[in-house]
């Protein structure tokens, strides 16, 4: 029992430690996030030759999954270019964007475990599931047809001094406005 008490004391002392709170428990300030995201964007562009993107990678994951079950995508318009074919041939492990996306998922898991906030959430209703699936499909389709999501088209676009990033920003705002109106109307 003595050692158990000692362990509890150590855990309690760690929980109250100011550096634990600052780095792991409390949300980081927006400014810290902005500075880090900018640094990662610069690092990504310098090391891989392309700006940061997230959702384009997911399209490749879909293609690899489809190929794994015997399909081929080389006739698909989206994957028809030489560059896209080369990326697919290099495979998952040779694709910087895939490694980065895996890193984001593992990093998020690490952060939530360190803050002891990991939780498997229950499904509230089938309505919620349907809305999530529909929303995911619309976002995925929109991100591909628009050549980028809020990272590839918005963040990387604006960071590259491209007007398209700002156009994206305006319509993202309009979409979010319309979406929240629909949410309040159908989900409250």
């Amino acid at each position, binding site marked *: 029992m003595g050692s158990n008490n000692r362990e509890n004391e150590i855990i309690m002392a760690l929980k109250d430690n100011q550096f634990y709170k600052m780095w792991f428990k409390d*949300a980081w300030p927006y400014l810290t996030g902005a500075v880090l995201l900018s640094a990662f964007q610069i690092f990504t562009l310098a090391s891989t030759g392309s700006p940061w993107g997230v959702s384009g990678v997911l399209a490749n994951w879909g293609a690899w999954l489809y190929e794994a079950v015997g399909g081929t995508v080389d006739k698909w318009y989206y994957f028809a270019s030489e560059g896209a074919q080369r990326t697919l041939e290099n495979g998952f492990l040779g694709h910087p964007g895939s490694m980065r996306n895996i890193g984001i998922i593992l990093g998020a898991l690490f952060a*939530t475990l360190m803050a*002891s*906030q*990991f*939780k498997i*959430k*229950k*499904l*509230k209703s089938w309505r*919620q599931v349907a809305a999530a699936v529909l929303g995911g499909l619309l976002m995925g389709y929109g991100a591909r047809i628009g050549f980028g999501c809020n990272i590839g088209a918005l963040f990387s676009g604006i960071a590259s001094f491209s007007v398209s990033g700002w156009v994206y920003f305006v319509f993202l705002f309009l979409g979010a406005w319309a979406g*929240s109106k629909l*949410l*309040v109307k159908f*989900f*409250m």
Partner: protein
Amino acid sequence: MAEYELDCLGEACPIPLVKAEKKIEELAIGDILIVQIDHSCAMKNLPEWARKEGHNVEIEEVDDGEWEVIIEKTK
């Protein structure tokens, strides 16, 4: 001084905030609204909204990844 609970477990942003905004209108001054959440971004926007409205707010971490935002209606 009645106490009301609002179960927002499993709900993602901004639903907890919108539900709390609606619910607090039904409360009398001095009543307490306890919003149960498990979406960490609601832990930021719920208290921010309630404090801006001038209510008293306390946050309690009740379990791993689960919080209660306790709002006392002041006006």
